[in-house]
C-alpha cells in the first residue's frame, strides 16, 4: 500500500468521508458505553431527548449554543493564522470580570448605556488578556499555546480571589459569592432566549464579512498560509497578528459579558463553564468556516445539555459526553487524511 496526494476531490466525497467518520465515532462510543454496562441506543436516545425534547430544553440548548458560537468565531480568527489560542476560557473570564466591574459599580446608569459599556468592557477585558500572548509571540517567538493556557488558570485564580476577598457580597450570608447584578445590568430576552443570540448572529456576519471581503481578512488568511509569503508581499505581519488576536480575545470577552449578564447574573470563577475548550472542538469541526460554526455549536450545545440530562436520568456521568465529543473529533481529525490522500495497492510491477 502507498499513498498518493489527491489532486481533486468532489464535495460529495468529502461529505461522505465526514459522515463515515462521525458514524465510526458513534460506534466506538457505543462500544465504550456497552463496556461500562449501559445500553448505547438508550443513552443516545436520551441524549437527544435531553437536548431537543421539549420547547424548554430546546431553549436551554440554544442558550448554551450562544457562547459556543461566539467563542468559536473568536478562536477561529486566531486559528486561521495558526495562532493556537486555547485561552478562550481565560479571555471569557477576564471579559466577564471587566463587564462585572461596570455592572457592580455603575448600575445607576440608564440600561442601554450600562449594557453598552459592559459590552465594550467585556471586549476590552478579553482582548487585553489575549494581547499578552500575542505580543510575546510576535516579539519573542514564545509558544502561544502554553501562555494562553497558563493565563486561563491565572484568570480563574484571580476571580476566585475576588470572590473570596474584595468583591465578596456582604449580604451573601458568608457565602463566597459576588453580588447579583441589578436588573439594569441584565441582558433582555427576545423570544425566551437572552438577546445574546442576536449579538451572536451579528458577530458571525460581521466576522464572515471581515474575513472574506476586507484587506485585513485577506492578510489574515495569507499569514495563515505562509508568514514568509505575507512578509514578501509587504504586509506588516506583526501588526496584523496582534490586531487579529485582540479581536479574537475580545470576542471571547464578549462571551464573558453575555454569560455573566444574561445567564448567571453575577460573576463567578466558573462563568466560562468550559466553553473555551469546547469551542476549540467546534471551531476545528467547522473547518474554520463561520457559517458551519452555528450548526456545529448547536449540536455540541445539545451534547452538553443532553449530557447533564443523562446524568440525572441514567446516572451516567456527564463526562460521558466529553468522551463522546473527543471521539467524534478524533475520527474527524483522522478522516482528514482520506480527504487529502488516497491509498493504492502497490502493483506487481512497482513491487519489483
Amino acid at each position, binding site marked *: 500500500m502507498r499513498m498518493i496526494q489527491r489532486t481533486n476531490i468532489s464535495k460529495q466525497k468529502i461529505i461522505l468521508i465526514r459522515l463515515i467518520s462521525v458514524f465510526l465515532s458513534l460506534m466506538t462510543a457505543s462500544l465504550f458505553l456497552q463496556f461500562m454496562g449501559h445500553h448505547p441506543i438508550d443513552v443516545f436516545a436520551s441524549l437527544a431527548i435531553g437536548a431537543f425534547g421539549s420547547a424548554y430544553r430546546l431553549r436551554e440548548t440554544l442558550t448554551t449554543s450562544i457562547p459556543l458560537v461566539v467563542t468559536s468565531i473568536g478562536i477561529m480568527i486566531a486559528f486561521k493564522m495558526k495562532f493556537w489560542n486555547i485561552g478562550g476560557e481565560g479571555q471569557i473570564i477576564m471579559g466577564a470580570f471587566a463587564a462585572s466591574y461596570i455592572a457592580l459599580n455603575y448600575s445607576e446608569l440608564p440600561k442601554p448605556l450600562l449594557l453598552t459599556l459592559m459590552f465594550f468592557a467585556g471586549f476590552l477585558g478579553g482582548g487585553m488578556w489575549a494581547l499578552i500572548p500575542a505580543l510575546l509571540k510576535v516579539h519573542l517567538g*514564545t*509558544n502561544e*499555546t*502554553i501562555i494562553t493556557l*497558563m493565563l486561563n488558570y491565572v484568570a480563574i485564580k484571580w476571580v476566585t480571589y475576588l470572590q473570596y476577598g474584595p468583591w465578596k457580597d456582604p449580604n451573601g450570608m458568608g457565602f463566597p459569592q459576588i453580588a447579583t447584578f441589578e436588573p439594569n445590568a441584565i441582558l433582555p430576552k427576545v423570544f425566551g432566549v437572552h438577546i445574546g443570540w442576536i449579538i451572536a448572529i451579528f458577530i458571525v456576519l460581521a466576522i464572515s464579512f471581515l474575513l472574506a471581503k476586507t484587506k485585513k481578512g485577506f492578510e489574515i488568511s495569507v499569514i495563515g498560509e505562509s508568514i514568509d509569503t505575507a512578509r514578501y508581499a509587504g504586509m506588516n505581519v506583526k501588526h496584523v497578528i496582534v490586531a487579529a488576536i485582540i479581536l479574537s480575545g475580545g470576542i471571547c470577552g464578549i462571551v464573558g459579558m453575555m454569560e455573566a449578564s444574561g445567564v448567571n447574573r453575577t460573576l463567578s470563577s466558573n462563568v466560562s463553564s468550559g466553553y473555551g475548550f469546547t469551542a476549540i472542538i467546534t471551531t476545528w469541526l467547522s473547518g474554520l468556516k463561520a457559517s458551519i460554526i452555528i450548526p456545529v455549536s448547536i449540536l455540541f450545545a445539545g451534547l452538553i445539555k443532553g449530557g447533564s440530562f443523562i446524568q440525572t436520568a441514567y446516572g451516567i456521568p456527564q463526562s460521558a459526553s466529553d468522551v463522546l*465529543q*473527543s471521539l467524534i*473529533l478524533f475520527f474527524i*481529525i*483522522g478522516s482528514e487524511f482520506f480527504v487529502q490522500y488516497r491509498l493504492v495497492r502497490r502493483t506487481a510491477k512497482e513491487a519489483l
Partner: protein
Amino acid sequence: MNTSFLVAAVIASTPLLLATLGELLTEKAGHLNLGVEGMMLLGAVAGFAAGYYTNDPLLAIIGAGAAGGLGGLIFGFLTITLRANHTVSGLTLTIFGTGVSSFAGTTFIGKKMSTEFIEFFNPVAIPVLSKIPVLGPMLFKQDFFVYLALLLAILLGIYLYRTRYGINLIAVGENPGAADASGIHVELYKYIHVVLGGALCGLGGAYLATVDVPQWQEQITAGRGWIAIALVIFVSWNPYKAILGALLFGGLSIVGFRLQHLNVSQNLLDALPYLVTILVLVISSFKQSKENAPPKALGSPYFREER
C-alpha cells in the same frame, strides 16, 4: 528554607519530572504532543483502579504506563500514520483523557488506597547516602516512585546521548528525511518513542493519584501536564536539566502553604506556578540558541519521498 520543605518539593516535583521526561522523549521524535494532561489523567485513573482492586503496586504502575501509552498510541496513529495536525490531535487527547478519567473515576470519588498499598510507598532510606546533610533526606530517603523517576531521568540521558538508538532518535527528530536515507526506520522510531513518552506521562499521573494524594479526585493533575510541556522548553530538551526544572516547579507549587502566615491570599498564591511558567517561557525565548533549540522537524509531518 528548611529540609522538610526540600523533601516535600522533591515529592511535588516527581509527577512533573515523569511527565516532562515523557514529553521530552515525544518531542525528540519530532512530535509535539499537547495531550500530556490527558495522558497523565489516563494513567492516574488506570493506576488508581489497578492499585485499588489488586493492592499490587507493580500492577498499578504497569496499568498506568499502559494507559498513558495507549493515549500516546492514539496520538501517534493520528500524527504519524495519518499525518494529522499535532496541535489539534494533542488537544483532543487532553479532552479525551479528562473525559475518560472523570467517567471511569466516578466510582472512586472519595475512595482511598489501602494502607497496605500506601505502606509500600513509604520512604525508604538508602544506607550511608541518606546521612548526607540536606541532600540525603531530599534524594535518598524518599519513596520508591521518586527513585524510579530520578533513575528514569538519568537512564533517558544516557540513552539519548550515549547509545546508537538515542542518536538515531535525535536524527529522526532533526531531519527525518536524512535519517530515512541512512537506513533508520523513521515511523517505527516515532511510534516507539511517542508511546513510551505517553507511558511516562501516565506514570506521572499515577504518582499523584496513588502515592502523593492517595485518594481519587477529579482532574487530579490540575494543569501539571501543561506545566510539563513548558518545562520541556525550559530545560531545553535535556533530561538531566529536567530534574532541576521539575524541582523548581515542585517547590513553587507547595510554596503557597508555607507562605500562609504572610497574609497573602491563598488564591493569589495558587496562581504562582502558572505565572512562573509564563515567566520561564519568556526567559527561555530570550536565550534561544543553537544548542537550546527544539528538534528541527518538531511538529511537521514526515512524508517519505516516492521512490
